[in-house]
């Protein structure tokens, strides 16, 4: 075939591909689209959907969150600050051996402190987490799981009235210490996610993260 024909075919393919991409919404992120929200908020979306039942309400709320998040002034953390947080976290892990529950509590506090340091308002805990979900929805699900595990551990040691593994963590026996250990591992996911993002300074969300 002649070069011209080949060239025409190639161009046609590109055009078609481009059109398809546009249709599928690749390239220019469309804020507010339901699918985008679902991708962005992942487990947080699912959680709210299970709670509220109405997908529209969920999308409304999440859209508001994104907007409110945009109004925040979030700041990256300097290297020595991050290193200090790292050392604190190591202390949490070390503390676990002596005081599992205290270590879990401290882990939660470190995360709160980190959220505040980054710039998420701290007056209302739930709101702080909601805003953080805009950038950290997936890690947040680990965080929530950690909190459940801590509750589970408390219930276990308060007389073993825990009805099974509602935590859902694989292999969690009623051993409260194991629950707390898992909790800290999940807390760490959130911690690392916050810290890593605070390093790059890119606190703005990427679609589909």
């Amino acid at each position: 075939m002649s070069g011209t024909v080949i060239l025409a075919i190639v161009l046609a393919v590109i055009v078609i591909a481009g059109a398809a991409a546009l249709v599928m919404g690749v390239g220019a992120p469309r804020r507010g689209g339901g699918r985008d929200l679902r991708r962005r908020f992942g487990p947080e979306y699912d959680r709210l959907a299970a709670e509220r039942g109405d997908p529209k309400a969920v999308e409304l709320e999440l859209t508001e969150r994104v907007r409110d998040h945009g109004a925040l002034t979030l700041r990256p953390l300097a290297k020595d600050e991050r290193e200090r947080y790292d050392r604190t976290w190591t202390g949490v892990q070390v503390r676990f051996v002596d005081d599992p529950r205290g270590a879990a509590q401290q882990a939660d506090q470190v995360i709160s402190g980190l959220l505040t340091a980054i710039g998420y308002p701290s007056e209302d805990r739930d709101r702080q987490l909601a805003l953080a979900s805009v950038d950290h929805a997936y890690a947040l699900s680990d965080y929530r799981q950690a909190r459940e595990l801590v509750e589970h551990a408390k219930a276990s040691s308060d007389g073993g009235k825990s009805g099974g593994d509602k935590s859902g963590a694989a292999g969690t026996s009623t051993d409260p210490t194991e629950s707390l250990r898992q909790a800290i591992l999940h807390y760490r996911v959130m911690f690392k996610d916050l810290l890593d993002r605070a390093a790059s300074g890119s606190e703005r969300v990427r679609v589909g993260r």
Partner: protein
Amino acid sequence: MSDTLPESREVTDELEAREEPRSELESDPELESEPESESESELEPKSELEPKSGLEPKSGLEPKSGLEPKSGLEPKSGLEPKSGFEAEPGLEAERGLEPEPESETEPEPVSSPVSEAVSSLEVDAGPVIAPETTSDFRTRWSSIQAGFIDDPRHAVEDADRFVADVAQAFASGVASRRSTLNSVWAQDGQKETEQLRLTMRQYRMLVDRILLG
């Protein structure tokens, strides 16, 4: 080092003091003034045998039978992580068995050469395990303990190996000290009672360090 000690008590006093309960010793004004350094070279040179560096001689602290651990001594031996690993340089100081030979007779110039011979060994110069090694051990322990979260079983295995290593280091340190001490007297090195007495004290200090763990 010239932290010599006041030598105004009789020998018998000293011996009795060793057997006395602690309260008597703590009220002893002599002991209070121990940390002062009266650098009188003609005083009993045994003061040179006191472990100085890194050890604060606790005033008022006196070995009773020489082997009694101070009650204030944390049994943690440095392996209790608070912020990781408790660095207890002060722990050594509380051994409580620093023989503070305050009760010697008047200084005897005759023993000067002896004291030099023994003191030049600097046998009991601090903890059996050197501070740098101790510091390394602590760092290592800290990371073992921090690793428990990720893999409890493995951490316990590491801890077990770690203890073996520490024990090994300790045993080496003791053997080294013993060997040094031994060289002082074994090959015809000491005959005088005074020399032997000083050496005896060195041995006791070593025993204290071992038993106080």
